[in-house]
């Protein structure tokens, strides 16, 4: 006998009636409005305060936020000190000042092939490097620039530090 679809729907609806009897823990609906009002009051109080006051309250209330801000500040300080120290050391070895260092853009490090004089680490502009294809052709001298005067070898090739732009 083919089941009547309407009967099946009725049975399904009776089955779903079970879900109407699922109830939260006792007292839940007594406490929920209070929790909502406390949150609303806290939010209203916060919005009446200034930015720095809100930030301070948030830091006090949420240790994770405080930790994040502290880590961020510490990281920024360490980075600043290390950059400053590197710049000073660089200047003392090369004569290239902090201002010049700051304007130096990252480029390509090349261990120069034998036909480049002195085994010096040069930085070559990307355009020059692109033109070189498979076989390295020396870029124009104006593209040479000392990159890392402290390194003594690159890819196993000995290099000499120099302190002059080429």
């Amino acid at each position, binding site marked *: 006998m083919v089941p009547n679809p309407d009967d099946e729907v009725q049975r399904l609806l009776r089955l779903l009636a079970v879900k109407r009897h699922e109830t939260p823990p006792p007292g839940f609906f007594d406490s929920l409005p209070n929790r909502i009002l406390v949150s609303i*009051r806290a939010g209203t109080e916060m919005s009446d305060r200034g930015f720095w006051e809100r930030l301070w309250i948030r830091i006090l209330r949420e240790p994770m936020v405080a930790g994040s801000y502290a880590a961020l500040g510490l990281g920024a300080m360490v980075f600043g000190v290390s950059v400053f120290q590197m710049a000073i050391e660089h200047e003392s070895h090369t004569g290239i000042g902090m201002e010049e260092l700051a304007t130096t853009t990252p480029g390509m490090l090349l261990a120069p092939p034998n036909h480049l004089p002195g085994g010096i680490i040069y930085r070559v502009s990307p355009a020059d490097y692109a033109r070189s294809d498979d076989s390295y052709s020396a870029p124009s001298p104006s593209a040479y620039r000392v990159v890392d005067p402290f390194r003594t070898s690159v890819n196993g090739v000995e290099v000499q530090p120099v302190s002059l732009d080429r």
Partner: protein
Amino acid sequence: MRTATEPPTDPSKALPVADPVEPEDLVLVRRAQAGDLEAYDQLVRRHQERVYSTVYHMTSNHEDAADLTQDAFIKAYNALRGFKGDCAFFTWIYRIAVNRTLNFLKQRRNRTPNLSLNDLDFNAEHDPDVLALVSEQTPRRQVDLGELQEKLNGAMQKLSEVHRMVVVLHDIQGLPHEEIAAIMDCNPGTVRSRLFYARQQLQAYLSDYLK
């Protein structure tokens, strides 16, 4: 006349549907808009059970439902100045809760749903509809009511969010198609077609209990 596709009509079973006029709600809303938190407290107490139940049946998780219900009422309070009264407050708060729940479920989609089911109340054992089902399956009612509850929630979680939502709002909460359409921002025809498809899916998932 009630058709076969409508939920059981015993008014004690379905949650009460709000009167669309709702004069008292409007008065409370106006007072809350003026900053009266006591008025908003009354609105929360009036609607919290229906909002919570909807969210709970969507998530099958009490903790998530409690958080989402709280968020929905807080968000509604913050947006209360924008409530013009062109629909019932009940519809408006439902819409906020439904949207928050759907967003939450989208984020949860890639995770296995963690069911945290509420206990069945005392009346479940005496509900004739439930009794008829369980007694047909087995005489061990209490044990199998719990099993039935788990299967039912598992089947509900297999439905897509929008299909689950129409089942919850229509077949469990007892809302009419038009009200659901207003809440879900679609037309009543879409609600009907989603309901038809969702029931077919549920029938397939729960076939052992529907023989």
